[in-house]
């Protein structure tokens, strides 16, 4: 016997409805005005001040790199047995941050997470700048940078080819592929928005420059058809790519026989950590941007921040699980060297404080995001993200340095301290990263306008005016076909 249910009450409807992706029912033109307006408006004083500070720090970093190249790698604190320290820590740190952009643009695209449209452009730009910072370190840590071409897959000394079986060479392929594909993906997404800037600008020079890079885009449906397919394919290609890059980076350690590095859990653990650190950096940058440009508050809503916090909580917990599982396997594996390495890491070694920092920042601090009110409190979110940024750097430091500072022979043990050159090179990369990001928000739209418009209710050809207040996600299921 069929039983009819009473019609849902307004409260029940409200409970299952998703919050709109753009608050305050903004029009298409509002999106254009407020995103393109950031680029078109005059350069503000805060921008000049920030850019001056960041580029000065970048110049100090570049000076340190120049000093290291001209003097030799001995200006760093590396010794025997600590042959890898801040250089590779920084490399893995920056590469990890570079994972959020492609995750947001590719994986969230394939899984139809429409909220990605408000943050994907800036996150992708952040990815590129982070990978640029990362690429500096493997290049300069070899000491004689003019021999860096030995990394290329061409015969070098005595016609010997590089060792294609080495994870270090895999890394060259993985990172350079990742950078190239990320640039293509980013630029493909930018083309329609560059068209917007071209069509709106009143300056002749800007029209020519934006026009050249917009490639003559005219939003024709015969173009959108191929464009959307290209975007889908790039997303499909980037998804396994983003998972592979940090896996390959982890092989640098996992395929060695150093206790503490020789672990099969590394690839998934590194990938989860990269997404974790990357999202924290996206929020670190987007929260101030949202504060500076209040119009963005309707595009990057508390619901967006909430979702990113949930991802941080999830990946932070995966990372915490990996830390504990590493310890368990070190004990359960019954390899005395492995046990000693982990004992030194967590109790007996000189860097126990770094391990505690890592645990507190990465595993404990994000647990506050179990509380919805904390995910909505932007100050708390920002503080946790700063903890995560620091914690992810410590994670790489702990993995790299504590494993080799006390190696197989106690007579070879040697404490490691960074030199001022290393410290300033690292700080300098933050200057490079932030300077590039400031240039990006000055000259390019930091929100993907055409994609944000696509998820607005007006974009749906079967949109009815009375549906407008339901919000955008309600339409996702009734797309034609």
């Amino acid at each position, binding site marked *: 016997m069929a039983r009819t249910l009473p019609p849902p009450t307004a409260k029940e409807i409200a409970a299952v409805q998703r919050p709109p992706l753009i608050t305050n029912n903004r*029009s*298409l*033109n509002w999106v*254009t005005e407020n995103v393109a307006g950031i680029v078109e408006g005059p350069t503000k004083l805060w921008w000049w001040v920030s850019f001056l500070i960041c580029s000065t720090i970048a110049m100090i970093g570049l000076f340190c790199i120049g000093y290291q190249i001209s003097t030799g790698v001995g200006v760093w604190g590396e010794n025997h047995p600590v042959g890898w320290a801040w250089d590779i820590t920084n490399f893995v740190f920056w590469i990890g941050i570079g994972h959020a952009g492609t995750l947001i643009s590719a994986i969230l695209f394939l899984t139809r997470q429409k909220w990605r449209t408000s943050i994907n452009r800036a996150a992708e730009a952040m990815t590129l700048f982070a990978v640029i910072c990362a690429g500096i370190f493997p290049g300069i840590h070899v000491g004689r940078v003019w021999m860096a071409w030995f990394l290329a897959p061409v015969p070098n000394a005595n016609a*010997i*080819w590089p060792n*294609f*079986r080495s*994870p270090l060479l*895999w890394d060259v*392929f*993985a990172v350079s*592929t990742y950078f*190239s*594909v990320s640039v*293509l*993906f980013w*630029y*493909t997404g930018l083309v*329609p*928005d560059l*068209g*917007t800037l*071209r*069509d*709106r600008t009143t300056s002749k020079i800007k029209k020519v420059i934006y*026009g050249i890079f917009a*490639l*003559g*885009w*005219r939003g*024709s*449906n*015969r173009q*959108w*058809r*191929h*464009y*959307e*397919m*290209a975007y889908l*394919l*790039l997303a499909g*290609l*980037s998804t*396994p*790519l983003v998972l*592979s890059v940090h896996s390959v980076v982890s*092989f640098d350690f996992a395929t060695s026989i150093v206790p503490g590095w020789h672990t099969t859990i590394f690839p998934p653990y590194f990938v989860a950590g990269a997404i974790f650190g990357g999202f924290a950096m996206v929020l670190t940058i987007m929260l101030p941007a949202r504060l500076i440009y209040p119009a963005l508050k309707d595009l990057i809503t508390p619901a967006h921040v909430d979702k990113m916090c949930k991802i941080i909580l999830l990946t932070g917990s995966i990372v915490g699980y990996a830390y504990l599982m590493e310890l368990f396997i070190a004990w359960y594996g019954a390899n005395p060297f492995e046990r000693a390495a982990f004992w030194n890491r967590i109790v007996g070694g000189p860097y126990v404080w770094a391990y505690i920092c890592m645990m507190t920042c990465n595993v404990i601090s994000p647990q506050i995001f179990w509380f919805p009110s904390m995910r909505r409190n932007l100050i708390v979110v920002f503080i946790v993200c700063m903890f995560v940024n620091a914690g992810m750097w410590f994670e790489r430091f702990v993995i790299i340095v504590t494993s080799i500072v006390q190696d197989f022979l106690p007579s070879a043990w040697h404490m490691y301290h960074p030199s001022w050159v290393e410290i300033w090179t690292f700080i300098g990369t933050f200057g490079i990263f932030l300077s590039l990001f400031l240039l990006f928000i000055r000259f390019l739209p930091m929100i993907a306008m*055409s*994609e944000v*418009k*696509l998820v607005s209710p*007006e*974009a*749906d*050809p*079967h*949109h009815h005016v009375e549906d407008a207040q339901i919000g955008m996600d309600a339409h996702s299921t009734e*797309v034609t076909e």
Partner: protein
Amino acid sequence: MIAEPKRIYGVAAEFSTAKALFEAAEQVRDEGFKRWDVHSPFPIHGMDKAMGLGKSWLSAPVLAGGIAGLLTATALTMYPALIEYKTVVNAKPTDFFTVPAFMPIMFELTILFSAFTAFFAMLVFNQLPKWYHPMFNWDRFSRVTDDGFFLVIESRDPKFAETRTRDFLEKIGGKYVTLVEE
């Protein structure tokens, strides 16, 4: 000297919403026009069907690009390691048993070549870059990247007839119906 009269590219009209453009496109398709297009600030869901267009075949060159990448990586890793200059490193084999160690490189180059093919094939399919296009001559058209929705029927369409096509576009709800010059 009398200037040559400019050639007509087509008749264009503006529509107020994505919905109106979508419905107009269906009518233009049903009327039997072949050389026409719609322009919008974002891709409109279902518009390909409304225009009578099929699936984009961009995936075909991308597959070819991916295969080319895989073959390149295979040749790049195997030729030196198995044929040209066998080097024993860490006692690893120098025959086909060493091939699994090349798989990361094969994977990366497959992705790299596919992605470049996807990007450049998209440009070729779309005939981009094309910095001059007659549609840019229409001043209202600059809103196509903001919030404007446009439909244009080209003069080279066999069914094109200046006044009749104008009337048709007005009938299906087009505003600011304009002759666009070449």
